[in-house]
């Protein structure tokens, strides 16, 4: 594992520098983000540890920031040749929709729609996959969470709205 050279793609440096900048921003704003009005001395208080941790992050990001500013010869932006992650992005957006759907439409309708839509987008065209998989999984999830685990799911907005 050890002894390999640093990765070439500049995306590594960009992401590293981004995390470092984020940590620096939080570090600067820490006195306003942490309530230090208590009676404890600094070493017992809630501020010392976050300061150490955020400083570690800033320090660890310096090599990335340096390479981002002064890229080594031959450095490129290409990561692994996989291209832009279109499929994961679309599925991720659908997943966010699924979360909203849980509140708006309820568990069953939301998971049925998310699964059928995502599977269709991912290239599945067989009716057995597009219809049966969502129905079976939704049925199982519904049974397990609502009946077996007795989990409370809020009344969907749509039902509340229709019910007045």
């Amino acid at each position, binding site marked *: 594992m*050890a002894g390999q050279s640093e990765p070439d793609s500049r995306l590594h440096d960009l992401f590293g520098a981004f995390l470092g900048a984020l940590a620096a921003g939080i570090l600067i704003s820490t006195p306003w983000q942490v309530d230090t009005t208590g009676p404890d001395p600094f070493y017992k208080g809630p501020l010392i*540890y976050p300061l150490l941790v955020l400083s570690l992050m800033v320090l*660890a990001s310096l090599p*990335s920031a340096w390479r981002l500013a002064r890229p080594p010869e031959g450095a490129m932006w290409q990561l692994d040749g996989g291209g832009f992650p279109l499929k994961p992005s679309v599925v991720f957006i659908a997943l966010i929709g699924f979360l909203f759907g849980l509140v708006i439409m309820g568990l069953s309708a939301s998971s049925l729609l*998310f699964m059928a839509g*995502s599977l269709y987008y991912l290239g599945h065209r067989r009716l057995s996959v597009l219809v049966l998989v969502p129905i079976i999984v939704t049925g199982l*999830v519904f049974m397990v969470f609502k009946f077996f685990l007795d989990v409370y799911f809020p009344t969907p907005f749509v039902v509340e709205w229709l019910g007045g």
Partner: protein
Amino acid sequence: MLENVLLGIQSGLGLGNLAALAFGAFVGIVVGIVPGIGPMVGMVVLLPFTFVLTPEKALSLLLGIFCGGYYGGAIPAVLMRTPGVPSSLITSFDGFPLTQKGEAQRGLSAALMGSFAGGMISVFILIFLAPLLAHVAASFGPPEYFSAALFGVVLVVMAYRERLSQGLLLLGLGLWFSTVGIDGPTLCPRFCFGIWSLQNGLHIVPVCLGLFGIGQTLILVEKQILQSETMSLTRRTLDFTKLVETFRYWKTMIKSGVIGTFVGLLPGTGSILASFMSYEAAKRTSKHPEEFGKGTPEGCLASEGGNNAVPAGAMIPLLTLGIPGDALSAVLLGVFTINGIYPGPLLLLKEPVLINTLYFSMLLINIAAFLMLAFWLRPFAMIVRVNSSILAIVIMVISVVGIYAVNTRIFDAVVAVVMGVLGYILLRLKWPIVNLVMGVILGEILEQRLRESLSLGDGSPIIFVTRPISVGLLMAAALIIIIPLLMDRRRRNRSA
């Protein structure tokens, strides 16, 4: 003592516990067989379900997935040269050549027997070694605990030293995540950014589930990892005559189990190293070293013996010091703490029945996983034919609903989804995601022990170097940083 052992056995043989460990082993085998998923995803997806279980059953369920995953990982490695879990890659060196020769059953028998032997031997070492380590750790105060946790962190970071700055960044990020929310000792809110829900902190379950569950499934959506066309298996069950043949390698079985346990004991080393070291040790002492890599059952047996010994090995620092050795045992630590049980030297004294149940359950898990695969080998192997994108979508739904179910808070699901994106980016960049998880898990321990130690020393950090065990641990951590860096430098100079 004997009473506690008997109570542990009784609890372990309880119907609920048997069902939990058998279900865990089943799920573990399934997620282990499907390349790209692995036991971590299985554990985090089922984590929310453990909240309705007693600690013994919850741990049996998750340990079943942990151990079962390594059993399952060998199947596609032998049949298709596609390791189900990364450490099974070494198994494929000899397993797949055996399959090509039409001797898949010999490869699978050796792999399964190696897994079983490694698993059982490591549990016996755990039973023997844990009380000894706990006895030493009983004299630990806050500075020693802090130094031990720091030692574990250093081991994990240095295990991925080719990505040192990224590893440190992720560790720092994980440590910072652990500070979000109300600070326990002072009840001061920290880094809530005006979001009320953040006062509860970033809980380990949504963080892990997002990073591993959702992050990994987004990768699965993108890549068609499986190539099941090459898979072939004629019998439904394992050929038991081939299984008996593996007993001629009994020395390799024992050796691999011992190596795997001790590698698993060290934080951050991982099961790949255990597999590789066991394989190399077997090759060195074999009567036919020239057959290694060309298709010898001994190679499969050694590799699987090594990686299957890791779960019990990783339990040793977890149970005795409360320090998880890897991301999988970090999740187990989460289960302990969620149930109000804090692993450490006193755990063995305070909860002897739970510990004995755990030991016995681990033995039973190995038996259950072995029997399941021996009798349902082909049905299990057929799982690789399931399309990975279907699995990914199903796992996403279960993950999001499961995480909501823990506290019936949509906010937790939102955290999991955000962590899912972060997990996807980190997996795609191949950054050591384990450092982030270790940071989240160990952050609270490190902070608490640091503040307690500084209080003991009236604010002076000198306290860490005035206590012998603490000094020893800090020096060991320093050596772990310096020696590999010097070795890398010397290697670079030599090659230049």
